[in-house]
């Protein structure tokens, strides 16, 4: 579209001090974000942390209270139409017209992006093939399963070959097979187009495949890095202790094991060393006082829990 812009901007997204205030509430608080083109980026955080507002500001649907953002080289405030032309956006809820057929929906979406009908036909064919929907062209969208509708919503979001695709909880509300299918589609799409993808998700295991993730809390990015590095920085092992009189036990162990994270009747400690042999001693000491003691590898879920732990 804008070739000069593409050449000079290797950053797909460049945000500085991006802030959104709703009355007294700071939904997004001075967010800085740089996304290299082609990256698969996960923005992770609990409900209300500002993920969706961030996506809305980057996609020009919400005006930042302050700060700037360039998306595909275009300023979100000064040139929202150009930004919208270079991005694809898939919402948590369907944007499709249930009364129209699959092909009619894609035609509508394509025309909105100023694509020629022949181009829409051609790309619909390719994308529906890629997403395993090629036999559903003339089916009414209302008659599709939830998983197929979500897949079609993504097809709808990329029919104009955006440089950046925003996926806001693309798998929310889907069962496991459908979630896996959606991820296969996104992988295929990335492989065939190389587009930048910015994702938010609740299912953190899904973010494992991201090139980079950022954890957002109360509108601020609190941790950022590759999933492997973040997990690694957390610790080499997680020690989980399950017991009835947990509080007293935790208090007695924190001096030795560092701060604990309690979740119901399970307490978790981080163990920074690869060598876990010392834990056998602990196991012996605690025998009889705990219901279970487990040592396992940390994952992104743990990073999420520690990031959002009440301090």
């Amino acid at each position: 579209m804008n070739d000069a812009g593409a050449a000079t901007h290797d950053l797909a997204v460049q945000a500085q001090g991006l802030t959104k205030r709703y009355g007294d509430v700071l939904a997004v608080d001075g967010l800085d974000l740089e996304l290299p083109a082609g990256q698969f980026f996960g923005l992770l955080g609990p409900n209300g942390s500002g993920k969706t507002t961030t996506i809305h500001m980057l996609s020009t649907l919400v005006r930042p209270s302050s700060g700037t953002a360039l998306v595909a080289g275009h300023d979100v405030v000064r040139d929202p139409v150009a930004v919208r032309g270079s991005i694809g956006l898939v919402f948590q809820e369907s944007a499709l017209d249930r009364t129209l057929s699959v092909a009619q929906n894609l035609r509508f979406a394509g025309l909105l992006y100023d694509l020629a009908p022949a181009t829409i036909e051609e790309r619909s064919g390719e994308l529906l093939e890629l997403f395993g929907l090629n036999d559903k062209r003339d089916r009414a969208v209302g008659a599709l399963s939830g998983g197929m509708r979500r897949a079609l919503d993504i097809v709808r979001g990329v029919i104009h070959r955006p440089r950046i695709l925003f996926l806001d909880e693309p798998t929310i509300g889907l069962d496991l097979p459908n979630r896996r299918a959606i991820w296969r589609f996104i992988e295929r799409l990335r492989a065939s187009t190389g587009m930048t993808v910015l994702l938010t998700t609740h299912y953190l295991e899904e973010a494992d495949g991201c090139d980079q993730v950022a954890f957002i809390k109360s509108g601020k990015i609190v941790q950022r890095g590759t999933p492997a590095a973040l997990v690694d920085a957390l610790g080499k092992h997680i020690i989980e202790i399950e017991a009835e009189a947990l509080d007293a036990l935790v208090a007695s162990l924190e001096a030795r094991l560092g701060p604990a994270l309690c979740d119901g009747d399970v307490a978790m400690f981080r163990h920074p060393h690869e060598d876990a042999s010392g834990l056998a001693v602990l196991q012996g000491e605690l025998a009889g006082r705990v219901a279970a003691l487990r040592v396992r590898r940390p994952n992104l879920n743990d990073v999420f829990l520690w990031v959002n732990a009440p301090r």
Partner: protein
Amino acid sequence: MGQCAALIRLLTRAIEMILRPIYAVIEREVVKMFRQRTRLISAMVRPLIWLFVIGAGLGAVMARTGQTDYQQFLAPGVLGMTILFGAMLAALTMVYDKESGVMRMLIIAPVAHRWIVVAKTLAAALAGLIQAALLLMVLGALGFLSWRMNYPLLLGAILVTSLSCAALGILVAAFTRTLDNFAAIMNFVIFPVFFLSGALYPIANLPLALKTAAMLNPFTYCVDLLKHAMLEPLASGPASDLRPGLDLLATSGFTLLAVIAASWRFSREEVYAPLIRVLTGKRD
């Protein structure tokens, strides 16, 4: 010179980029209109009921007092009513789009949001236009239409009426969040606009309060224009109340203002920020 040509190229390209999205909205409206057959059939039956039931009933009363053909008088009003309902209901689908989520596709399209309002207005006007054409065919087939009409003016009047009614519908839609208010819209907008318009009776003899209301009603001027086109060539009985020039000025002025007001309202963030939160199903 070169700069000028470049500017023209840029402008042409900008217009082209708007045209296809506008066409998309119009195409969808037409596809949906012909799919919803009951909506189309009832749009044809409603005016016929007015014409043959109300028209015949009141016509009988008036004939006793020596008045002329009431059914004939009613024809432009009923045509206007068909356009009013057709265009207004089509424009109000914008509210349905907000609720169902199709608005998501529209607000992320690479066009300024005011063009969504313009596109919806044009689509609704086309819906009114098509229904007017269908009704004329039905009336013609039933042998009810006098063929002595001012056709160019009729075409113009139908066009202007369709646009005005669509603009009114868009204005209402821009200020309406859910279709729960539909009954209220029917009661407080569509019916008063229809009854206080001269569609059913000449406004000249109305009491002052009602006459004032009628003169403030843009639909009055639409109906008057339709009367000019359909009744004047017959030169019999009560015809129009106003001059066609005034009608044109009032209707086109209203259309322009209504569309500007609606697009202003639609582009304001405090209006569409909650909308976006509803559309994306999240408050964070």
